């Protein structure tokens, strides 16, 4: 018996020693399991963190921590004078990842780029439909109106690709930095097609990005290793691990216990605990989002800008924000776009709280009753529509306007709310996709968005001219000026009450360096290092 025990103890000691490894491992406690690893087919931020931002790269990239577009796989590009033709010059010698399931025989070339986009819209492409995965919808490609703007993608030579548009569309460049625009390997796709294992394309990804896929245990752990031939240089961390941890409290406990190095989205209630802990840093940033409340500008007396201004003035916004966001905090919105976005107009200020002035205007306009819409869903830009509605209702009551709160379940809420003749004030918000101002202004308030996502049914000629011109202008400086003017018009016309841009948080252990919050809501691990 004694012998047996001694043997077991020796074995134990040996195995503990054997378990020690010198590789530098970074553990990220992600919030949900990825649907799959093909960023063209998915829509969630957690999907993108696990696929496009780790395994893949794109023609252009967003500056780390910002929304400006910078070179990615394309070193440079030219845009024709008419704004219709984009010519991209690829970085030479970019290597795809070599794994146990794929060994590339060639570097990245124009074929890969053309294939990456063709597969998302060309019905003839075998990768477009059921042959690859059942019920594919390519949501982002269609959601960003790519079918409308893209005429064709062409290979000029191995390192040159040409994109022709149907009409000038300056935000296109930002679209190409988005996750769905990740560049995949055509060679890998061809190989899988030949071997009849097409579905593997979504579960065993191959890209040119900073990390290569190693293994995924469903709903549990994703493992990556640094891509040794990454064209921007091998990463400092050797292994990247996603420990999938859906519960926010458990996620934070894991960081505090040192079981993971970075975790996103803490509960507001835990923020105090996190701040008090000396081993971790709480990082925050105004998110690329806006919470607002749309007035239907076509129904009297809300068709008059002064009435809308008065309703805004009647709301005690500071108290409202404090009560809604509590410890998590939020940046009061002055403009539709958040201050982290280029073209944000610092001179524009939203209506100040002035119930007395509001009362006079509203009485003169004869506004006594109004519908005030609320839903049950927690959104990043508004954690509690119902509570917001109750507080606004109380503020409006003080100026003689009786608000009736209208409630619907979230999907029904939005489909009812976007109807042209929906009365009253409708609470809603937006989280940006590509960091381009067009993604806010045109998506939310263009004339052609009425009935879709223009909940104010607002079509203002001055505003429309400015944003449409900006959409067709390639020069960012010029575009920025146009959007700044558009913000002035928006403030004057007040089609909506602007609430706030919520804060986004991440908890990071102190020995981790180089991690940055990203306004686009993604989590990137390139450039991150960890002291042992």
């Amino acid at each position: 018996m004694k012998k047996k025990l001694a043997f077991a103890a020796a074995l134990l000691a040996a195995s503990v020693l054997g378990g020690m490894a010198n590789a530098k491992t970074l553990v990220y406690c992600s919030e949900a399991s990825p649907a799959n690893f093909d960023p063209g087919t998915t829509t969630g931020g957690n999907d993108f963190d696990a696929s496009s931002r780790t395994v893949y790269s794109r023609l252009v990239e967003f500056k780390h921590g910002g929304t400006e577009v910078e070179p990615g796989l394309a070193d440079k590009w030219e845009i024709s004078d008419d704004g219709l033709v984009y010519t991209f010059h690829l970085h030479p010698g970019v290597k795809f990842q070599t794994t146990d399931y794929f060994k590339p025989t060639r570097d990245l070339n124009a074929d890969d780029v053309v294939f990456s986009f063709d597969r998302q819209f060309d019905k003839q492409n075998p990768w477009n439909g059921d042959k690859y995965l059942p019920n594919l919808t390519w949501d982002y490609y269609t959601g960003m109106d790519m079918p409308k703007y893209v005429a064709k993608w062409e290979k000029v030579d191995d390192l040159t690709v040409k994109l022709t548009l149907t009409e000038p569309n300056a935000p296109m460049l930002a679209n190409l930095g988005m996750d769905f625009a990740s560049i995949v390997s055509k060679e890998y796709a061809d190989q899988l097609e030949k071997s009849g294992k097409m579905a593997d394309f979504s579960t065993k990804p191959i890209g040119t990005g900073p990390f290569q896929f190693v293994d995924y245990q469903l709903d549990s752990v994703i493992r990556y290793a640094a891509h040794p031939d990454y064209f921007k240089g091998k990463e400092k961390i050797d292994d990247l691990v996603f420990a999938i941890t859906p519960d926010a409290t458990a996620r934070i406990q894991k960081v505090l216990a040192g079981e993971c190095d970075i975790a996103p989205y803490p509960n507001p209630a835990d923020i105090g605990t996190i701040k008090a802990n000396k081993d971790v840093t709480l990082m925050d940033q105004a998110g690329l989002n806006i919470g607002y409340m749309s007035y239907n500008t076509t129904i009297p007396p809300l068709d008059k800008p002064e009435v809308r201004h008065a309703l805004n003035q009647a709301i005690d916004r500071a108290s409202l924000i404090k009560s809604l966001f509590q410890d998590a905090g939020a940046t009061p919105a002055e403009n539709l776009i958040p201050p982290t976005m280029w073209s944000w107009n610092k001179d524009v200020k939203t209506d100040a709280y002035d119930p007395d002035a509001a009362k006079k205007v509203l009485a003169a306009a004869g506004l006594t009753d109004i519908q005030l819409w609320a839903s049950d869903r927690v959104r990043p830009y508004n954690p509690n529509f119902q509570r917001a509605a109750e507080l606004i209702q109380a503020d409006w009551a003080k100026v003689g306007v009786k608000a009736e709160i209208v409630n619907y379940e979230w999907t029904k809420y939005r489909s009812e709310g976007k109807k042209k003749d929906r009365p009253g004030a409708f609470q809603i918000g937006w989280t940006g996709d590509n960091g381009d101002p067009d993604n806010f202004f045109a998506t939310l308030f263009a004339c052609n968005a009425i009935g879709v996502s223009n909940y104010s049914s607002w079509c203002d000629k001055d505003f429309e001219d400015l944003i449409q011109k900006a959409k067709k202008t390639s020069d960012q400086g010029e575009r920025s000026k146009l959007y700044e003017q558009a913000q002035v018009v928006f403030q004057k016309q007040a089609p909506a009450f602007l609430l706030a841009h919520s804060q986004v948080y991440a908890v990071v252990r102190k020995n981790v360096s180089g991690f940055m919050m990203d306004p686009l809501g993604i989590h990137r691990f390139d450039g991150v290092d960890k002291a042992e």
Partner: protein
Amino acid sequence: MLKYILHRIALLIPTLVGITICAFAFVRLLPGDPILAMAGEHGVAPARYEELKEQFGYNLPIWQQYARYVGEVVTGDFGVSISSKRPVLEEFKTLFPATLELSFFAMIFAMVLGIPAGIFAAIKRGSWFDQSLMGTALVGYSMPIFWWGLLLIIFFSGYLGWTPVNGRIDLQYFFKPITGFMTIDTLLYGKWDAFRSVLRHLVLPTIVLGTIPLAVIARQTRSAMLEVLGEDYVRTARAKGLSSARVIGVHALRNALIPVVTTIGLQVSTLLAGAILTETIFSWPGIGRWMVESISKRDYVVVQSGLLLIALIVMAVNLIVDVLYAVINPRIRAA
């Protein structure tokens, strides 16, 4: 005996039909629309919406959708997940071992503590031990699992640092699953330290998931034991001069366990229901969490097929319990 088993199986058929109807109707009664849920914040243009509805078959009349669903299920086709595009059955097979492993340990935990506690309480009926035990059982039975789990994590993992916060195994261990049961796989690979890590990770979720069954089993064992102890044959055994241990251990216990076996069988559904919350808190990659995430994504296919698969398992367990009951209690067979 065979006739009895066949009779029990025949009884399952209407139950099964009822379950397919419930599973099918339930997801459709949920507010929300899978296509809008898929499209996210963007919304989807009306024309595209109709196109997608057709693609997924949601434009068909509801009875046709149901007929299609049943037709597929009968042929063993449980469909493909809307969000991950993987076959539902494949995901289920991958995840089920995790749930089964956790449930197994929770049940062992509940039995090992519950049965002796119940027996002891019955023997010492009315004592302070009996009363405090039954009081505790009542608390355990009423315990909100979600709160209980977080409380244990914050205290044992956060404050004391004794147990890992969640997950199934330390991240440093990495191997391809063979059976999907971590306790078995680590042993098959001969990795003792990994095995220990698995056990450490099992401690808190096992306690959390096992709490309610523990309370139920303790109470059931106690009352069954009390009933048996009052029987004539026990009195006879005592009168014969048998030792108290022998009377309880041999004569009383075997008879007292009959209703306890049924209770244990019935606890399987409690375990599967509890797994939904336990797995979410402990990042346990099992079917409970899978269902929760699928409901929030409005993944109709996963929800309706997952419900059906879980129901099938519960039914199978109940069938086994019925049969076992007949084996240990011959009176049932005749009835």
